[in-house]
């Protein structure tokens, strides 16, 4: 267990420490009105102090939860820390959740105070106000559009700050005592899990747990206060929060908040982060963009790209790992770096990236290799909300595409006979809020956390995750069926955005495919293929042929792996709508909710197995403003070619 200084055992104390030690260094940057505005550590601490006093003046007490709803904004991070100054619990909520989804966390944590970004969030909270009688105070950062809102619950951020500054002038000692009262064992934050199953659960994390894990990872990666992170994912997800709140407070590095969600790419190029984190889908989207743009490039450039990417695939990863590479290849790679890899890293905004992580889901091996081959130190890590993220990290020089690395200092791993992974670490959560039943199921009396993931530790001590324990299934003839493995293989194709594979207890494997509108649309345009919209394009025979080629390539791949050759995809269909978290088909972190999809599209699943050529489907969709409508379509079902197992010794 890494040691924690007793005068730096909570986040507010860490903030005070940085304000003293590196007061003039940047802590937070935000692009506002086209210019990057900087908050130094001293500014950050001043803002937090005033805000904390403001909250105290409004009746915020020790042990209260402060709901924080909005995008990555310095003020919202300051609010989290302000709540913690008073011994309160920061509770970030997903800013893109619809109003109804917000009601549960607010009722569950009996939230009285909420600090939100703008009118959009205020409207949502006002909508659920009748259902949330505890909610008494709503503070908003951006006053735009709120001028005529007369509700008593509302107060502007500036006003709150003013109240705080006033009381800080009157009594400066109050806050210092409050901060000093805090201890490492206090609850720091509560994150609601995205709820792949059932209602969300509030995961209670202490200062000690978060600080310990953030510190262990920072030590391992040698983070310093010169590192820079771009905060662009939902702050309610611990995967973002640990990198943009907990770890900067531990290491003293600075974070940057992009101007808006649409400008992330260009903001990233301007900032040039050194430390980067993204779930696989982000890396996938970036690669899709690169691939599309390369397809539009001139023939000479395409040729150059292909040649050098082949070289990079061969030696790039090895060079990054410091393995021996021939002199000619080394020289050629140097040329490639000048002509292609360097500019490409620059376009991706990753020229200065020293460490990049991906987590949240398994990453396709080809996708993973692509980034490493062009010289970006992309590594996998394993963790969850319940473990304060850092459980396993791939150390530099020991990066393998199919594992998530060895356990980070302080973590113990164990497996049940069903291959379920158990974890014990100082970073474990305290409990699920007001849910002792769930806490007991997840954490046994010896302190082992049951992850629900199936995996094993390989010969080098690296953890390898195959799938969720409950998802790993078998076909009716006993063949192993790992749906996520198949889906990830499919999703590597730029034309496929999501895939859902079915096969447990059935005689064969079938799949739903969700095409990538951008990539397929571009492809169709180049072929002069007219289409009216998503539904129309998805039902085109040409698109089906395109997708079938992808499925068959996956099948060919699978046929080479003796254990999985029996789970090749025999039939598939292209869904008529994009899977969407608003319709409950994906979680807020965009993981496929397999069970829900199978229920919702039962008629489609039946058609896959019954052998029908087309099927009519009607589905309810929820628009961003909360209204609902229906989409109906005739969906075609097609067969894909299955390859005989390549190995002579057929799986028995």
């Amino acid at each position, binding site marked *: 267990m890494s040691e924690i200084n007793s005068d730096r055992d909570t986040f507010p104390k860490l903030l005070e420490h940085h304000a003293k030690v590196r007061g003039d260094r940047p802590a937070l940057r935000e692009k506002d009105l*086209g210019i990057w505005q900087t908050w130094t550590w001293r500014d950050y601490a001043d803002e937090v102090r005033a805000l904390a006093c403001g909250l105290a003046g409004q009746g915020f007490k020790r042990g209260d939860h402060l709901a924080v709803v909005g995008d990555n904004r310095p003020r919202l991070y300051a609010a989290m820390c302000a709540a913690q100054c008073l011994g309160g619990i920061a509770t970030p909520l997903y800013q893109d959740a619809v109003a109804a989804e917000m009601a549960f966390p607010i009722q569950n944590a009996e939230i009285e105070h909420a600090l939100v970004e703008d009118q959009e969030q205020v*409207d949502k909270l*006002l909508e659920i106000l009748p259902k949330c009688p505890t909610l008494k105070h709503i503070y908003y950062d951006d006053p*735009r559009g709120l*001028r*005529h*809102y007369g509700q008593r619950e509302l107060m502007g951020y500036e006003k709150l700050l003013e109240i705080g500054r006033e009381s800080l002038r009157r009594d400066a000692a109050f806050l210092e005592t409050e901060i000093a009262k805090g201890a490492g064992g206090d609850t720091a934050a509560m994150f609601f899990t995205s709820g792949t199953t059932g209602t969300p659960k509030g995961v209670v994390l202490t200062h000690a747990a978060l600080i310990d894990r953030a510190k262990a990872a920072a030590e391992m990666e040698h983070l310093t206060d010169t590192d820079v992170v771009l905060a662009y994912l939902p702050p309610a997800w611990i995967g973002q929060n640990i990198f943009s709140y907990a770890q900067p407070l531990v290491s003293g590095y600075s974070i940057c908040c992009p101007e808006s969600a649409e400008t992330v790419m*260009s903001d990233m190029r301007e900032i040039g982060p050194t430390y980067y984190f993204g779930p696989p889908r982000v890396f996938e989207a970036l690669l899709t963009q690169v691939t599309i743009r390369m397809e539009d490039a001139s023939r000479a450039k395409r040729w150059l790209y292909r040649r050098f990417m082949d070289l990079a695939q061969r030696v790039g990863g090895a060079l990054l790992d410091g393995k021996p590479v021939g002199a000619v290849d080394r020289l050629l790679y140097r040329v490639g770096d000048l002509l292609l890899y360097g500019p490409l890293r620059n376009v991706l905004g990753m020229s200065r990236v020293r460490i990049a992580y991906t987590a949240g889901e398994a990453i396709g091996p080809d996708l993973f290799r692509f980034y490493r081959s062009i010289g970006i130190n992309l590594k996998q890590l394993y963790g969850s909300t319940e473990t304060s993220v850092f459980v396993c990290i791939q150390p530099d020089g020991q990066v393998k595409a199919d594992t998530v690395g060895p356990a980070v200092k302080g973590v113990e791993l164990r497996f049940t006979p069903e291959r379920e992974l158990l974890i014990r670490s100082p970073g474990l959560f305290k409990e699920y809020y007001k849910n002792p039943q769930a806490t007991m199921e997840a954490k046994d009396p010896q302190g082992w956390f049951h992850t629900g993931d199936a995996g094993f530790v390989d010969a080098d001590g690296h953890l390898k995750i195959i799938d969720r324990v409950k998802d790993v299934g078998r076909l009716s003839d006993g063949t192993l069926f790992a749906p996520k493995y198949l889906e990830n293989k499919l999703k590597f194709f730029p034309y496929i955005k999501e895939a859902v594979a079915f096969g447990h207890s059935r005689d064969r494997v079938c799949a739903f495919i969700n095409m990538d509108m951008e990539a397929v649309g571009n492809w169709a345009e180049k072929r002069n293929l007219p289409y009216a919209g998503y539904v129309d394009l998805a039902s085109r025979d040409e698109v089906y042929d395109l997708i079938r080629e992808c499925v068959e390539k996956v099948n060919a791949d699978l046929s080479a792996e003796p254990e999985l050759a029996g789970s090749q995809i025999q039939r598939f269909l292209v869904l008529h709508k994009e899977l969407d978290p608003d319709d409950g088909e994906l979680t807020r972190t965009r993981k496929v909710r397999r069970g829900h999809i199978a229920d919702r599209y039962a008629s489609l699943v039946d058609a896959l197995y019954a052998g029908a050529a087309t099927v009519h489907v009607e589905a309810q969709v929820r628009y961003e403003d909360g209204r609902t409508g229906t989409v109906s379509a005739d969906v075609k079902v097609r067969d894909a070619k299955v390859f005989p197992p390549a190995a002579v010794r057929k799986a028995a």
Partner: protein
Amino acid sequence: MQESELPEGRLREAARSSRIGAPILAVEGVSLSFGGVRALADVSFDVREHEIRAIIGPNGAGKSSMLNVINGVYHPQQGTIRYLGRTHHDMDSHEVAQSGIARTFQNLALFKGMTVLENIMTGRTLKMRSSLLLQALRIGPALREEIEHRTVVENIIDFLEIQAYRKTPVGRLPYGLQKRVDLARALAMEPRVLLLDEPMAGMNVEEKQDMCRFILDVNDQFGTTIVLIEHDMSVVMDISDRVVVLDYGKKIGDGTPDEVRANQAVIEAYLGVSH
């Protein structure tokens, strides 16, 4: 608590109607013809400060001509325009712009090769004081002035949520966004009265909703009086305070959206009458 049970729309309406002031623009007995064609015949109406005033009518009703008259592009043969108490019937468009009336165009008149930022900056032309030479050299007062103008423009970019396209040439943007840039340029003049010529034409439903929200926000935030021409009845009825209906150059209705909707002459003009 009672307030929070009111839908947002009604709250807004109530708050806004209390803000609407005295008439600042009045059109009195305006007639306009091009040779034998009578575009406008004896049209009168007024626009109050801070309100959203719509002019609607079927194709060829004379809506754009009406706007061009207010704007000073056309000079009516009869009638007068009273703006801020001053009467005029032959101001040219430059003078009108200087007096605080800005407009957008139905068929977009943006500089396609210039970036979004540059296009919006052109909206500040009337406010630039330093000489062309100083501006070209970007020295001294010209530089200070440019920074001031840029601040105003950045605020508008932020307001209309087009930060992602700041440096993109306008010609490469989709139509809905070009319309937004057009609005941004008009706003850069910091107008008192904003004339919008079919701001929603050719847009899909989502783009229309966005534009409605921006129009309401502009009116709310800056207190700008808005005169709006629109073809799409449903949109107009949702956001306007008062509506004028033109048909073949004549005013056939004037009043709140509800009154206009119930007006028999309007229904006939839009839906036709069986003879």
